[in-house]
């Protein structure tokens, strides 16, 4: 579904990721692991079009999307849920969700349906629907960010560290939700620090170090890889 080949991206002169290759097959959950600053978010930003690739190709469903505008990419069905959430702080929760469905703005019925689904997934969002997104706590905002991404009915969803700063109970729920979303038919590319939880729901994973992929394999393989265990899963 998505294949990334030899992708390099830079911030100014600084090369953040170098010759990255990733393959995502429809229906999978694929996880990107790596220390801070390893380049996970950069990869995401490049896929979603916020950053122009310096070299390499990004092919989505047989179409070259590297360097396209973010809105075109969303239209094609790739939606990113960013690390720092990027919500609309003064809009209400409900308005934020509605904006998530921007690409389907002509299909009122579908929007209504999606809204219902998101509210079922995260009931707290329904309770707070009139509140400004900026007044939510960190965890609630994260849910809203995921909810907003879901509203676009993506084929491929990019989740950048969805568990950051979340309470354990919520993290647990979050991963359940991700599995749920995946089962409903959304392919997922996930970046995580929480390797344990991530690998337990993922099909396969890639490990970043200093902007390069150093190890990749199925979840089971990565689980049993000593070095990966030591660095990302903890004792």
């Amino acid at each position, binding site marked *: 579904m998505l294949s990334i080949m030899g992708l390099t991206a830079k911030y100014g002169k600084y090369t953040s990721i170098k010759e990255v290759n990733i393959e995502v097959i429809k229906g999978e959950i694929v996880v990107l692991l790596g220390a*801070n600053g390893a380049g996970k978010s950069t990869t995401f930003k490049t896929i979603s079009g916020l950053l122009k690739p310096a070299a390499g190709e990004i092919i989505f469903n047989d179409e070259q999307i590297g360097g396209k505008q973010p809105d075109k990419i969303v239209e094609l069905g790739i939606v990113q849920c960013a690390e720092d959430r990027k919500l609309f702080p003064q809009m209400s929760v409900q308005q934020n969700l509605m904006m998530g469905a921007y690409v389907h703005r002509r299909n009122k019925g579908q929007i209504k349906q999606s809204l219902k689904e998101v509210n079922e997934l995260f009931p707290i969002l329904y309770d707070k629907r009139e509140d400004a997104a900026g007044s939510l706590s*960190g965890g609630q905002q994260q849910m809203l960010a995921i909810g907003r991404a879901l509203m676009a009915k993506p084929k491929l969803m990019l989740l950048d560290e969805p568990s950051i700063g979340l*309470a*354990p109970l*919520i993290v647990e729920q979050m991963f359940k939700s991700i599995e749920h979303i995946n089962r409903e038919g959304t392919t997922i590319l996930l970046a995580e620090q929480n390797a344990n939880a991530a690998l337990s729901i993922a099909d396969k994973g890639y490990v970043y170090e200093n902007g390069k992929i150093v190890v990749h394999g199925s979840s089971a393989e990565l689980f049993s890889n000593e070095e990966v265990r030591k*660095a990302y899963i903890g004792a």
Partner: protein
Amino acid sequence: MILQTSQLTKKFGGNVAVKDVSFSIQQGKVNAIIGPNGAGKSTFFNLITGIHPPTEGQIFYKGEEITKYPANKIAELGLARTFQTTNLFERATVFDNVVVGHRLRTKSNLFDAIFRTKRLKREEETCKEKALEVLDFTGLSNVSDQLVANISQEEKKRVAFALALATEPEIVFLDEPTAGVNPDETEELALLIKKMAEKGLTVCLIEHKMQMIMSLADQIMVLNYGEKIAEGTPEEIKNNEEVIKAYLGGGSASA
């Protein structure tokens, strides 16, 4: 019992972020605050450190009421803090970021600056020494002349610690000091926190990483919807029904 809050309440408009919280921070120990998102943990910190004035209730530090003190006065008394989102000066070096941390212990004023008095030179020296000391303590000596923009996330967290330590505090409040840091590095930060406590500092921290909290904390308070729902040792908290229901959950994801 170095710091106490008594029935502390904070309302934002109609929203009660912290409700009637009475809590004592034990001297020289690691005190942890946990709770679901939006429980009011950060707000609780903001109240104690004077960023927001409480709606009701009182705060006592070593027997002195500090409820209405401005943030800078509270810092002078020896309460330092870090923020949930690290804000540092990205275009300056680590060293330059930290030097100003000791400013509150100095007296130089404009006059000293213009005439470069002895006092200024002496105090600049102490600030620099202090900076070197805390950078050494936090293990940042090797990056001290790098721009903050160029160091890693974990190092940034350490710089935030260093800044707090440069104020020569007696208590440090750490708001999610390891958020967004991988397990390896989390452990190292935990060691640093331990080191701070061993040095005699009182630590008060907010975290979601249970493993770390359980091994680090001497005392834990749990907040939920702004209210204190439990307080006790890690053992007690781990087995507290209400806490499990509201926060911990039963699964294994709490790595």
